[in-house]
């Protein structure tokens, strides 16, 4: 890894001002890292070096001047295409840019390129991209996780210091875990979803990949805040997240979820218990709490996320933008454009969601899942009254091999069991590297916190990072 990766973002600007680093240092390091491994990793769907140079040259002289950001290709920008990893968006050009990207550009950062993802962010391995899979830079035989696998791989391979992804059920935290990175999912409403192509609107949130907690805090501080173009974005003031890191965890209490522990086996369980013992040894107050519905998280999520997806993805109709199949009638145009343009996983989810909302099944599936979600929210809120943070492993296992779960949708969904609860409850969560497995693959610890407690969560994350690092 090149030496720039060791420079915290907050110091990059200082070094440029002091003259010890050139503003284009990261741009050139990105291109060198891309030359070294992109042909194997395939992190980017769109990577136009001339366009990246042009965006860098035009970038604002702000605190992030010279910082390249890799962006998941379901977050729109006017410059270049947005594919969502799907054939159905062939030829689509966004007429506006996402608020999160506009804010990064205002702060001086520039968009390096658009990264690969499971089609419409539906997947946990980035194997469901219409443009081919991304590979894990730490072991190319393994998946980088998903759905934001391209963004995770780009940061893990040193192609960018930070990246944006989207997290609907763990799509930032799970790939961060598989690639040995920090992954941040903010509170629902903390970051504007304007320009994030909708999957499940009550769960979607833009998140951050970084090499260290402090860098994630810097980026969150830039992209967070109310946006008149997203009425669900919160009016809560945006604190100085980066400054909060210094506050530590004095007097804070952590909770381990008993039901999560029961789902862990073998090395995963042993290593999680060791991590908890290490944190205890370093002075953390840790107790056990319960979230009885946790083992049902994936079942609840499968119904609700896909019900919302079936409605959101109705917009891809072959009429207003994207791929259009030739047809004699309007009905045939819809059927053929969507039939040809959407991949098997997206179709499966639209079908599941449509079924759960259809006459005769609405109450037995959607209604029941909504009530279970409400129960889970209450259980998590009650646990977070007893303790300040909840700790789980980010994933039940380390990065799996390409092809290992592609023919077993349910096994793929179950990899999200620890990340889905934070989306269902709308709370912030942070994945932090927690050593390596016997096979040498990254392990990861997840910290969840109360809504809008990102300051405290990042401070705790910084402390945990220091203890486990």
């Amino acid at each position, binding site marked *: 890894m090149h030496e720039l990766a060791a420079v915290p973002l907050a110091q990059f600007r200082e070094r440029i001002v002091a003259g010890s680093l050139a503003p284009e240092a990261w741009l050139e390091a990105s291109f060198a890292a891309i030359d070294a491994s992109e042909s194997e990793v395939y992190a980017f769907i769109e990577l136009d070096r001339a366009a990246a140079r042009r965006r860098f040259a035009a970038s604002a002289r702000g605190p992030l001047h010279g910082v390249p950001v890799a962006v998941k290709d379901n977050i729109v920008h006017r410059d270049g295409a947005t594919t969502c990893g799907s054939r159905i968006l062939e*030829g689509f*050009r966004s*007429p506006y840019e996402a608020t999160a990207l506009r804010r990064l550009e205002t702060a001086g950062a520039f968009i390096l390129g658009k990264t690969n993802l499971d089609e419409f962010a539906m997947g946990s391995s980035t194997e469901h991209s219409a443009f081919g899979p991304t590979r894990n830079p730490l072991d190319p035989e393994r998946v980088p996780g998903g759905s934001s696998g391209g963004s995770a791989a780009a940061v893990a391979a040193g192609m960018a210091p930070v990246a944006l992804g989207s997290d609907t059920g763990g799509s930032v935290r799970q790939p961060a875990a598989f690639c040995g990175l920090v992954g941040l999912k903010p509170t629902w*409403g903390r970051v504007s979803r304007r320009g994030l192509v909708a999957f499940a609107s009550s769960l979607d949130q833009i998140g951050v990949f970084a090499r260290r907690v402090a860098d994630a805090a810097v980026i969150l501080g830039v992209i967070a805040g*109310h946006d008149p173009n997203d*009425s*669900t974005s919160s009016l809560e003031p945006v604190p100085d997240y980066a400054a909060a890191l210094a506050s530590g965890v004095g007097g804070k209490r952590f909770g381990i979820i008993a039901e999560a522990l029961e789902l862990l086996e073998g090395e995963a369980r042993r290593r999680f218990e060791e991590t908890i013992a290490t944190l205890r040894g370093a002075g953390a107050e840790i107790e056990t709490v319960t979230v009885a*519905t946790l083992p*049902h998280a*994936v*079942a*609840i999520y*499968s*119904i609700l996320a896909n019900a919302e997806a*079936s409605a959101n993805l109705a917009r891809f109709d*072959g*009429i*207003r*933008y*994207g791929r*259009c199949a030739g*047809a*004699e*009638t*309007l*009905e*045939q*145009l*819809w*059927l*053929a454009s*969507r*039939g*040809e343009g*959407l991949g*098997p996983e997206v*179709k*499966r989810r*639209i*079908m*599941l969601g*449509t*079924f759960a909302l*259809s006459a005769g099944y609405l109450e*037995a*599936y959607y*209604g*029941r*899942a*909504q*009530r*279970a*979600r*409400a*129960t889970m*929210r*209450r259980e998590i809120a009650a646990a977070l009254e007893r303790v300040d943070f909840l700790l789980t492993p980010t994933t039940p296992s380390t990065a799996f091999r390409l092809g290992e779960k592609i023919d077993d*949708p*349910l096994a793929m*969904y179950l990899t999200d069991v620890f990340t889905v609860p934070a989306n269902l409850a709308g709370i912030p969560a942070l994945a932090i590297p927690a050593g390596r497995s016997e096979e040498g693959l990254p392990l990861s610890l997840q910290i969840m916190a109360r809504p809008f407690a990102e300051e405290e969560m990042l401070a705790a994350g910084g402390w945990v990072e220091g203890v486990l690092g």
Partner: protein
Amino acid sequence: MITPDQIRRIASLAKLELGPEELESMTRELARVLDYVDQLAGLDPGTAAEEPAPATPLRDDVISRSLDPATVEANAPAFAHGHFVVPRVFGGE
């Protein structure tokens, strides 16, 4: 157990064309996922109602610019006289 006929009906509602092989695999895979989510039937039914969506801040009710027709047209597969063009809606079958 979900049947191929039900899958055909759902695909029609979802406006998805499925080939014979897709129909077969979709029936099998959906059956398995639905069997898995049926675990929710065993949850305590006394567990209270769905929560209302949280209140969202609304912007002032003032007119602002929306996309101009030329921008919309640039993305449309077929566009004429300020409108999207589609095949005939009635007839055919």
